[in-house]
Structures are given as C-alpha cells and as structure tokens.
C-alpha cells in the first residue's frame, strides 16, 4: 500500500524530471550545434516556474482553462501505463492498444483549449496536429501490430519482459523499429514535422493565445510528453531496461539522435508530411508486418 | 317473394333497370342517375346472399327456360365467379354513387344506361356458364365501354374511343370465331360440356380455337401487345368509368381467359406461352407507367402492369399461384378503382391531369391524398396492406421450385415492383411535400365524391387488418378452380 502511494507520487515526479532534463539537453545541444553557448541546463524548469508565477493571466472561457488541465491530466494518466524498470504499474488495466487511445486524450484537451481561444492560428495548429497524427498513425499501428504479433501479447510489460537479455525488438524487427522511430520522431513534432507549432507560420499554433500559468501547464505537459514518447519506444523496441539508470541512458541515446536530426532538417508542408508517412514508412512497416505474419 | 339466391337475377336486375331508365328518361333525365346505385346495391345484396350457397355447394347452377344443361343457356357461379361478381357489384355501386355528383355532362340518361349495361356485362361475363353467352356478355360490356370512353366527346376521348372500338371489335370477332370453332368441334356451347368433350382432342387441335379465344379476350384483358388501346381509353373516360374499366373489366376478361384455359381447355401445356405474355405485359406496363406525366395514364399503365402481375401468377398453374392471382385481383380491383376515383376527384379541383400540377395538394385535399397513399401502398404490396400478402403469395408460388428460371422470374417481378414503387412514391411525394402552385384555389372535393372512395378505402383497410379469412377463402377458390371436375360435375350433374 505504502509502495503504491510512493509510486503514485514518485512516478509523475520521475517522469517530469526525465522529461524536463531532456528539454534542457535539447536546448543545450541545439545551441552547441549552432555554435552558441545556449541557456543553462535547467532553463526549462525556470521557464515553467516563471510562467506559473505570473501575476496577470487571461482566460477565454472554461474550456480554455480546462484544456491544459485535461492535457496534463491525460499525460499523468498515460505514464502509469508505460512500465519502467521493475514496475508493472497499471499495465494490467490497459494494454498497448488501449494505451494508443489513452495517449489521445491529451491531444483532445489541448485541442479543446486551443479551439476555445478563438484564434485562427490555434485552430490551424490543431487541424495540422490532428492531420499529422492521422498521418503517422497508419505506419504506427502497423508497427504496433507487428510487435504485438511477434510477442503474442498485448501487454506492454510482457513485451519488455520478452525482450530481456538483449533480444531487443530493434534487432528482431529492424524495419519496424526504423518506422517506429520515424513515427516517434514525428509525434514529438521535431523538424521536419514541426508543422503544428511552426512559429513562423501559425505563431506557435495551439499555444498562440496561451500565456501565464496555462502555458506553464502546457510546458509541464510537454515534459511528460517527451518522456512518454521516448519511454514507449524504449519499452517497445529497446527491451525496457533492468534499472532506471539504463532506462535513462537508452532514452537519452534515442533523444540525442532525434535532436541531431531536428537541428539539420527543414519543415514539411502538412500534406506532404501526411503523404510522406503514408508512403515509405507505411510500405516498410507493412513489409515488416508481412515478415512477422509469415515467419510467425 | 323472389328467390334472392337465383344468380340470374344478377343479370336480370340491372337489365331491368336499364329498361326502366329508358322509360324514365323522357320524363326526367336527372332521375336516371339514381337507378344505377339501386341496381348495383341489389346486385351486391344478391351476391352476398349467394356466398353461403357457394361456400356450401361449390358451384351453383341456374338454368333458363327450365332446361337442364348442357342444353339451353345456363349460369354457373363458382367461388371465383362469385367473388368477381361481388367486386363488380361493389365497384359498380361505389362508382355510381360517385357519379351522382361527378357526371355533369349531358346526356346523363344515356350515360347511366351505358354505365348500368357495363356493370351488367361484367357481372354477366363472370357468372355465365356458356361460351356464346360469354361472347354476348363480352360485347355488351365492350360496346357500353366504347360508348363510355367516348362519352366526353372531346378530342382525346373520341380518338381513344375509336381506337378502342376498332381493337375491341376485332377482339370480339376473334372470340366469336374461337367459340364457333369450339362449337363445330364439340357441338355444344356449354362450358362444362365442352370441357368434357374436348378431352379427346390433341394439344394441337385445341390450339386453334384456343388461340382465337385467347387473342380475343386478351385484347380486352390488356395483355401485351394487344393492350395498346388501354392507356388511351382508360384515362379518356370519366374517372368513375376508368375505375370500373381498370378495376374490374380487364379483370373480367382475364377471368374469362382463366376460365377458358383451366376449366374449358384444361390447357396446362400452354402456360409457358401465357407466362411469357404475362411477363411482357408486366414489364411493358410498369416501364411505361414510370414515364407518364398524366396521372390517369400512369394509373392505366399500372393497370397493365398489375394485370401482367396476376396473370403471371395464374400462369404458374399451381394452387398457390392461382391463390396469389386471385388475391392480387382482389387487391388490384379495389385499390385501382379507388385510385381512379381519387384521381378524378383531384382533377376536378386541379383542372389538370399532369402530375406536376398535383404538387402540394396533399395539404389541401387531405382525405383524398391520404386515401391515395393507402391505395398506392396496397397496390405496391407494402405491409400491412393486403397487397403485401398477395405479393408474398405470388413470390412464394413462383419460387416453389427454386431454380435458375424461377429466380430470374422473381427478380424481374421484384424489379418491376421497385419501378412501381418508384413512380407511386414520386407522385405521392409531389402530392404531400411538393410546393403548392401560387394562386390556385384548391379545396377538398365535395363529399359526394369523397364518401364513395372512402368507403372503398375502408374496405381496403379492413382487408389490411383482417387478411387471414380472405387468404383462406382465396385458397379454397384456387383449389376449386384447379379441380375442374368439380365444376363440370356440378353443371352437368343434372344429367
């Protein structure tokens, strides 16, 4: 019981910590690639504290307030279904397929809040976000199905267990893993898939109207988001980890690759992004799926 | 006390009224219009009195001049004949009630006489037991029908009447030739007697007289391609007449064909040919109806289609097929007659027969439109109306043996029912939901026109609620029809 309570309090904090540290890394690494010094490593945390403690804050309505809360709440919900080393968490209550849809709740909250703000930039941003999601979902579900079929289970914890001892899904299903990476990459909204927030086009999209504590919540949510995407990939393809340290290292390596790509690529137009996802990643994912189907 | 159960009265009474009309006419032309309702009412009562007898004995035979069949003319009423007589009397009664208000054109006395004669002829056709008598009845019917079609004497009705007359006369002559051939071969004119004697002839020998009789009756019975006069003539006549023509006259001719085919000739081998004809009738009728802009013409084409439909059912030759045919005859007679009456009532308000002009009148002529819908639904075979059961029976009868051909047939039938649904729904849509034309003053037709078809509508609704007894009766009728020995023995039993 005590353990459960500890997990319930600790896991969000852990996830937040991991996420926020990656956000810090990103800014630092990005700056270094561009030969800048960059902000301090803990800058994102400072940003959040600053935003939350802002004195003046506007609101466009209840849903405007509620949107970020739903997004954050959903993110907190999600992390309980992604096993971390040594802990099953709530994976018994919802399997991978359910997880796919649990992850959507956050976007819904975000979308509702942004919609309420009555700013066309936000609306366009959300429309783009959803379209992009539709785009990468096709290869993603194919990838997920391949993994589920390969390991004959839909339980994420069981999948990580099955990969124990270095039999990572990455090595078993390399094609799926590549596509999975591309999907995770797009889901994180990095270049060239940053059509959603694209500051130069839609003024940071959904966040256009948000400021103050609302934005603070969204930043926190973003930290969780980074954690969720990375942890999911690690659990699915990199065999989870035996302890938190390894877990963090794996996530970090993954994140590093993502950041490197992010810094050097331009931006897709949204329909091109969808076309991209529905072309090569889908074909590769299907190939992998067929291999799984035939090979068992 | 007159013996009410003598079927000869069915002919005698209206004939008497015709002569009465001729007598009255010089004094009061308007008074003649009260004669047809009375005559048909008496007829209806007589037919209803006959029901228990027919139910008990199967066939009742009445003779003239006290001579037993096969000599002399005789009347033989069996279940099918009686049912049709009931329908004829009922429709006659209703249409003549409708006439009271509807017919304003002169000469009214002549109209009423012709109308009575038409009713007489139809009743006569369905109860006679004698081939030549059938011809006479046929001629009485046709000539009065010619006159009634041309009654309005405008361009259309005269043209239609003339076409009808030429076709009808040729048909009558052909029928006569066929009858005479039969007489030459068997030496008798009594149906039952012929039926007994014809057994010794081969299929090929029977074919010649049969073909003449079939063609002759087929012209009146609206069989393809002999029915070309019908879509002209039925709409051209006054609506009450159209309702009789469409409702029961073509049916009476079909009855005669059925009687000839089953009872007289025992001609099961011909059925493939009949089936083909029926199918073509159905297809051409329904397809043409779909394209009509004139409501009465559409109904007339629909009559052709329906005739094809029940004739098709008959030509299946099975008990269930006959049962379906009879049920459909009943359904079609009542519904189509009602539809024509309603169309007439609407035309008196709209002053046009074009369907487009009917748009939106459902809001103004509520009763008429609702009953139009009821009639159309029944005709289309939508439950819970009686047409549903008859359609079902016919389909079941067709598919009694499932093979490629029967399925093809059923597909054609049902496709035609889709087309029928398509045009009826189109009319109803424009009636109920179309836009009313600006500046038209339309109100419900006068009660004198509404009450008759409402009565008919109530009959249809009653059938919808209690279909079971009629279905049972129709089965009995079908069985009786197909066991022709019963009929023959009943007529010739006196010997």
């Amino acid at each position, binding site marked *: 019981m005590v353990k459960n309570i500890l997990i319930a309090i600790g896991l969000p904090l852990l996830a937040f910590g991991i996420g926020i540290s990656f956000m810090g890394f990103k800014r630092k690494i990005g700056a270094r690639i561009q030969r800048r010094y960059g902000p301090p490593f803990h800058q994102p945390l400072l940003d959040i504290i600053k935003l939350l403690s802002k004195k003046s804050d506007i609101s466009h309505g209840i849903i405007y307030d509620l949107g970020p809360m739903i997004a954050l709440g959903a993110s907190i919900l999600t992390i309980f279904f992604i096993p971390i080393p040594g802990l099953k968490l709530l994976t018994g209550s919802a399997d991978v397929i359910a997880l796919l849809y649990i992850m959507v709740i956050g976007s819904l909250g975000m979308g509702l809040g942004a919609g309420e703000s009555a700013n066309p930039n936000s609306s366009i941003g959300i429309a783009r976000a959803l379209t992009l999601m539709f785009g990468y979902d096709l290869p993603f579900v194919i990838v997920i199905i391949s993994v589920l079929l390969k390991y004959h289970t839909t339980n994420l914890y069981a999948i990580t267990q099955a990969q124990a001892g270095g039999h990572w899904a990455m090595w078993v299903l390399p094609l799926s893993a590549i596509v999975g990476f591309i999907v995770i990459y797009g889901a994180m909204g990095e270049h060239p898939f940053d059509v959603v927030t694209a500051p130069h086009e839609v003024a940071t999209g959904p966040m256009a109207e948000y400021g103050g504590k609302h934005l603070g919540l969204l930043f926190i949510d973003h930290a969780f988001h980074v954690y969720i995407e990375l942890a999911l990939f690690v659990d699915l393809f990199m065999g989870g980890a035996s302890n938190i340290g390894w877990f963090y290292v794996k996530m970090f390596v993954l994140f590093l690759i993502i950041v490197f790509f992010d810094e050097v690529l331009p931006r897709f137009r949204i329909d091109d992004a969808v076309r991209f996802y529905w072309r090569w990643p889908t074909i590769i994912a299907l190939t992998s799926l067929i291999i799984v189907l035939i090979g068992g | 006390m007159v013996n009410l159960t003598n079927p000869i009265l069915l002919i005698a009474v209206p004939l008497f009224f015709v002569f009465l009309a001729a007598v009255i006419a010089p004094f009061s032309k308007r008074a003649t219009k009260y004669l047809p309702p009375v005559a048909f009412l008496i007829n209806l009562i007589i037919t209803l009195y006959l029901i228990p007898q027919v139910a008990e004995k199967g066939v009742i035979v009445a003779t003239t001049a006290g001579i037993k069949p096969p000599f002399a003319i005789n009347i033989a009423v069996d279940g099918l004949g009686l049912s049709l007589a009931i329908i004829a009397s009922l429709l006659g009664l209703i249409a003549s009630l409708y006439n009271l208000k509807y017919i304003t054109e002169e000469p009214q006395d002549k109209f009423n006489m012709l109308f009575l004669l038409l009713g007489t002829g139809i009743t006569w056709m369905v109860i006679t037991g004698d081939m030549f008598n059938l011809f006479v009845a046929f001629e009485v019917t046709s000539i009065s029908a010619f006159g009634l079609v041309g009654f309005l004497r405008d361009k259309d009705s005269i043209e239609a009447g*003339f076409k009808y007359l030429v076709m009808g006369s040729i048909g009558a002559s052909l029928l006569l030739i066929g009858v005479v051939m039969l007489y030459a071969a068997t030496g008798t004119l009594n149906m039952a007697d012929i039926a007994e004697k014809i057994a010794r002839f081969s299929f090929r020998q029977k074919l010649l007289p049969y073909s003449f009789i079939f063609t002759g009756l087929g012209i009146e019975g609206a069989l393809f391609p002999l029915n070309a006069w019908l879509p002209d003539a039925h709409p051209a006549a006054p609506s009450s007449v159209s309702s009789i023509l469409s409702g029961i006259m073509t049916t009476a001719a079909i009855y005669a064909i059925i009687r000839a085919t089953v009872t007289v000739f025992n001609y099961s081998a011909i059925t493939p040919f009949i089936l083909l004809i029926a199918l073509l009738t159905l297809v051409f009728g329904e397809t043409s109806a779909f394209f009509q802009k004139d409501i009465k013409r559409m109904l007339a084409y629909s009559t052709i289609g329906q005739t094809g439909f029940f004739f098709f059912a008959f030509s299946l030759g099975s008990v269930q097929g006959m049962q379906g045919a009879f049920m459909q005859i009943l359904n079609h007679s009542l519904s189509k007659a009602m539809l024509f009456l309603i169309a007439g009532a609407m035309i008196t308000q709209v002053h046009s027969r074009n369907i487009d002009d009917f748009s939106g009148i459902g809001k103004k002529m509520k009763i008429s439109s609702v009953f139009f819908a009821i009639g159309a639904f029944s005709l289309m075979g939508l439950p819970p109306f009686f047409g549903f059961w008859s359609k079902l029976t016919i389909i079941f009868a067709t598919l009694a043996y499932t093979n490629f051909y029967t399925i093809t047939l059923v597909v054609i039938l049902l496709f035609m029912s889709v087309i029928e649904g398509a045009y009826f729904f189109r009319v109803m849509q424009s009636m109920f939901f179309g836009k009313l034309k600006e500046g038209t003053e339309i109100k419900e037709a006068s009660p004198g026109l509404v009450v008759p078809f409402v009565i008919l509508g109530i009959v249809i609704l009653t059938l919808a609620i209690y279909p079971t007894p009629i279905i049972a009766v129709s089965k009995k009728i079908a069985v009786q029809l197909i066991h022709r020995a019963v009929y023959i023995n009943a007529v010739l039993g006196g010997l």
Partner: protein
Amino acid sequence: MIFYVGAFILIAVGLYAIIIKKNLVKIIIGLDLISSGTNLLIVSIGYVKGGTAPIFSHPGILPQMMVDPVPQALTLTAIVIGASELALAAAFVAILYKHYGTLDIRKVRGLKW
C-alpha cells in the same frame, strides 16, 4: 369448305383494310368485313348440303337433314351486335371528323406512349 375459306378470306381482307387503309370510313368497312366473315363462318358451320329448316313442319324430315339451328341463332345475335358496333363506330368517325376535319387516320395521333 369453300365457305370456310371464303369466310377467312373476308376476315383477312377486313384486317388488311384496318391495317393498311388510312381512311376512317374504310377502316369501318374493314370492321364490317370481319364481322361478316365471322357470320359467314358461323352459318357455314351449321350448313348441311341440301338440308332444310330445323322445323318438324311435316313428317318425313329427318333430323340429319336439318341444318343446325344453333349457329343461325348465333348469327342473328352476332349480326345485331355487329350492327350496333358499326353504328357506334360511325358515330365516332363523325365526331372525329368534326374535331380533326379529316378522315385520315394518320392525323389522329394525339395519344401515344
């Protein structure tokens, strides 16, 4: 036999007239020909060569010698009917002429399809 052939020729000529001739009056004549042919056919069925009227007017007339009375009765009826039909047809033609001013059937085509 010759009567039968004659009767059918009459009927055929009548039909021909109806189908080919364009004049309304000629069509009526065609109708008349058909009914006459039919009547001839009926009578010829009952005809017995050298027969007498079917009446036992004096002894010695055998039933085999009598012509069949029924067809004669039929013919009478048919003639009456035919006559009334023709009268009606003539009336129609008269009114048609009033409407169209011509007796050409090709002009009388108001109703079709």
